[in-house]
């Protein structure tokens, strides 16, 4: 049987890098500023000055040269140096998708696995469930009134 990717399947990527797990995790997160391809992949483009993994505030965002900030994600789970889970904002008008990145030792190297999932929440059906959810909440308010 041939498998076809559907629009709601998780995106999975993996890469093995020649660093110990802790170094790889720190480079990916605290050091994101030094390697993220801002020019192609940021909201501010050439204006983007830095990206920040703010563990205390549980958010990941970019900052432009003029100081304005754009949110990328909320930090949902933070388990250094093995794993983190984010709510990744694809469409500000829809529920977020989930991005999980895990780091595991492979000898002296580290395998980094990335899974971006939850597409079903972000598409038209996701919006429908949001809409219904609000109908229910508003219905209860009306009943209570």
């Amino acid at each position, binding site marked *: 049987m041939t498998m076809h990717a559907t629009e709601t399947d998780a995106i999975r990527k993996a*890469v093995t890098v020649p660093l110990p797990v802790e170094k790889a995790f720190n480079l990916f997160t605290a050091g994101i500023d030094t390697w993220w391809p801002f020019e*192609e992949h940021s909201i501010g483009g050439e204006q983007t000055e830095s990206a920040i993994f703010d563990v205390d505030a549980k958010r990941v965002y970019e900052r432009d040269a003029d100081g304005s900030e754009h949110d990328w994600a909320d930090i949902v789970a933070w388990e250094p140096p093995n794993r983190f889970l984010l709510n990744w904002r694809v*469409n500000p008008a829809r529920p977020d998708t989930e991005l999980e990145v895990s780091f595991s030792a492979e000898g002296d190297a580290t395998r980094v696995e990335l899974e971006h999932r939850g597409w079903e929440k972000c598409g038209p059906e996701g919006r429908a469930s949001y809409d219904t959810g609000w109908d229910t909440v508003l219905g209860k308010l009306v009943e209570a009134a």
Partner: protein
Amino acid sequence: MDALGDGTRRLILERLRGGPRAVGELAAELPVSRPAVSQHLRVLKEAGLVTERRNGTRRLYRVDTDGLAEVRDYLDSFWTDVLAAFEAAAEAEAERRTNDDARD
């Protein structure tokens, strides 16, 4: 039609991740003219990647995840790029570490 085969259209989509924007705002941030931005937005709209809404006298454009398959494909190549950049940085750091060790 390959709506995202064009670099400017990919940049427009990246800008819209930050929230809805008007044509003029996009044109101010990108190295292309306003008519060119409008043209690219039309292609993105036809591909189901972007949607348009009137807000008073302004027309605002936003990412449209109703065109979910296209958006998901886009993010697929997004993560490929991002991990390639991470891999290159990790290799450079590993090389620095090796050189430092050699000097010790």
